[in-house]
C-alpha cells in the first residue's frame, strides 16, 4: 500500500523547515541511509526554494502544494505552484560555474534524484522528483 503525505504551505521560507522534516522522516521510514535521507531532503528543499524565488518572485503569500508518495520501489515528490513558468534554460542540465553565486539548486536536484520532470498544468506548474528505492532484502524481483 502506498503512503501519501500532502503539504499545502505558503511560499514563505519559514515553511521550508517543516516540509524538510516531513520529507526526511519519510525517507528514513523507507530505510534510506542517513546520507540519502539528507540528499532527498535537500533536493526537495532546493525545488521549493526555486518556486519561491523564481515562480513566485519572492512573494511569500502564495500557495505551494507538495505531494510526497512512497511506493514500494520509489519515493515521488510532486510540487505544484501557481506562479510563472520556469525558464527552460534553468531546468536544463548545465555545467557548474566555480564562481557563480546562484544556479546550484537545479544541479543539486538533478544530481540527487533519479527522475526530474516538469509539466505545465492548467493553472500552474508541476515538478515531479523521483528517487528510486533500493530493493528490499527478501523482496521478490
Amino acid at each position, binding site marked *: 500500500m502506498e503512503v501519501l503525505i500532502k503539504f499545502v504551505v505558503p511560499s*514563505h*521560507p*519559514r515553511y*521550508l*523547515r517543516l516540509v*524538510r522534516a516531513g520529507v526526511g522522516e519519510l525517507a528514513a521510514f523507507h530505510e534510506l541511509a*542517513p*546520507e540519502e535521507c*539528507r*540528499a532527498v*531532503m*535537500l533536493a526537495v*528543499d*532546493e525545488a521549493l*526554494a526555486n518556486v*519561491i*524565488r523564481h515562480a513566485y518572485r519572492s512573494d511569500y503569500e502564495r500557495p505551494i502544494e507538495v505531494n510526497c508518495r512512497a511506493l514500494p520501489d520509489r519515493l515521488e515528490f510532486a510540487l505544484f505552484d501557481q506562479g510563472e513558468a520556469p525558464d527552460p534554460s534553468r531546468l536544463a542540465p548545465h555545467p*557548474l560555474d*566555480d*564562481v557563480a*553565486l*546562484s544556479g*546550484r*539548486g537545479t*544541479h*543539486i536536484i538533478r*544530481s*540527487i534524484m533519479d527522475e526530474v520532470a516538469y509539466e505545465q498544468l492548467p493553472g500552474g506548474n508541476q515538478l515531479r522528483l523521483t528517487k528510486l528505492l533500493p530493493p528490499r532484502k527478501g523482496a521478490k524481483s
Partner: protein
Amino acid sequence: MNASVRSNKGLTIVDVQGHIDLGTSPALRKTMLESLKNVDCLAANLADVKYIDSSGIASLLEVLKEAKRKGKKFVLFGLTAGVREVLQLTRLTGVFEIHATEDDVLNSVTGA
C-alpha cells in the same frame, strides 16, 4: 539559525548554529561580511550546522570572494557530514580552505 562572533587568540570566529536555508542565509551573510570588515582572517565554525542548502553555500562563497578581493582569509572548520555533502554536490570542496578543528585553524593561521 544563530550566528555569534567571538575571538580566540586573535582569531575572529563566527559560530553558526541551526538551519541555513533560503530564509536564514541573508542574515548569516550579513553577519559574516560585517565581521570580515574588521579583521584579516575570519573563521566560520560550522560544527553545529544542522542543515545547509545552496543559498547557504552561496553565502559562504560570497564571503570568500569578498575576503579574496580585500586580500584577507576566510576559512571553514568543524564541517558536519551534511555540510560536507552539500559542498561536494556543488563541487566547492576544493574552493574553500577547510580545517577539522578550531585548534587546526589557529595553528595554520596564527601559528599558535
